[in-house]
């Protein structure tokens, strides 16, 4: 069972949230950012090549042009492989844990798994980030010594930065599964 809804990110870009329920205690929430646009790619390439042509006109050194082509190609590959995140997803399995996956534009996927014993709660926190106050979803990790304490905060959806309406949907879905922890008897 999958449903997809459109929202907008903190910077105004359109993002899509997809909710899939695999079973009663397993849910997957994915936030998809818009793919690399052809117009921004052409704009960046033209800017770099025009600047290189200007330098060539001043210095009469043709290495500048080859260097510009190299820089554009290498820069594009690095950007697609290390920077541009297309999809971030959150897989919550009630008795097992939470898995966070980031898929890059080049196809690379980076995954983190947090087992349920370490998860204290999933909350929407607000903090100052680069001259703005943003809402962001985060996983609070339990402090082993202190049952009320938080040892670590893991922020989620860092690159797509959804706004509060999208975060509330994700928060409600996560809380429905996390609440089952309290009612279900501890078996391990």
């Amino acid at each position, binding site marked *: 069972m999958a449903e997809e809804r459109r929202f907008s990110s903190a910077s105004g870009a359109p993002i899509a949230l997809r909710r899939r329920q695999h079973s009663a205690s397993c849910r997957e929430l994915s936030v998809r950012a818009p793919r690399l646009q052809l117009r921004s790619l052409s704009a960046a390439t033209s800017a770099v090549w025009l600047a290189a042509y200007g330098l060539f006109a001043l210095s009469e050194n043709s290495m500048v042009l080859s260097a510009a082509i190299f820089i554009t190609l290498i820069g594009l590959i690095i950007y697609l492989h290390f920077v541009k995140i297309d999809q971030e997803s959150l897989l919550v399995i009630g008795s097992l844990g939470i898995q966070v996956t980031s898929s890059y534009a080049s196809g690379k996927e980076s995954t983190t798994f947090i087992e349920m014993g370490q998860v*204290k*709660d999933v*909350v*929407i*926190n607000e*903090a*100052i*980030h*680069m001259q703005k106050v943003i809402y*962001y979803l*985060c996983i*609070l990790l339990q402090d082993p010594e202190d049952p*009320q*304490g*938080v*040892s*670590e*905060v*893991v*922020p989620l959806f*860092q690159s797509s930065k959804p706004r509060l309406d999208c975060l*509330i949907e994700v*928060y*409600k879905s996560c*809380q429905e599964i996390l609440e089952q922890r309290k009612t279900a008897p501890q078996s391990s």
Partner: protein
Amino acid sequence: KMVENSPAPLPERAIYGFALFLGSWFGFILYLIWAYIPETWLFSLGLTYWPQKYWAVALPVYLLVAVGMGYILLFGINMMSTAPLNSTDTITDNYAKKQQQKKFQEEAIPALRDIPISEVNRMFFLPEK
């Protein structure tokens, strides 16, 4: 005792203000003399050990550049002191961790305390049952 701490005008304050006014005018005229009067005229008056005139231009320039850099520095220091998104300082701090729970009394205003973030989230974002 209260009268001494008020910002109202007093005779002593008027005297301090006038002394500062005269002092700052004197300093300004002295600066203009140092900057504009040629060195040979100052030597003929017997004033041979004044600082180089270079400093009459250099010091104001230093001051203005420092003010401009101060803007940028303040901006940067503020950004550096802001807690990152993954730090527990955005959730709690030492005072909140050590706070004591006061007993709940009927018909009294509840005591002020730091409410844990999970409770705040439930109240805001989950529908009331």
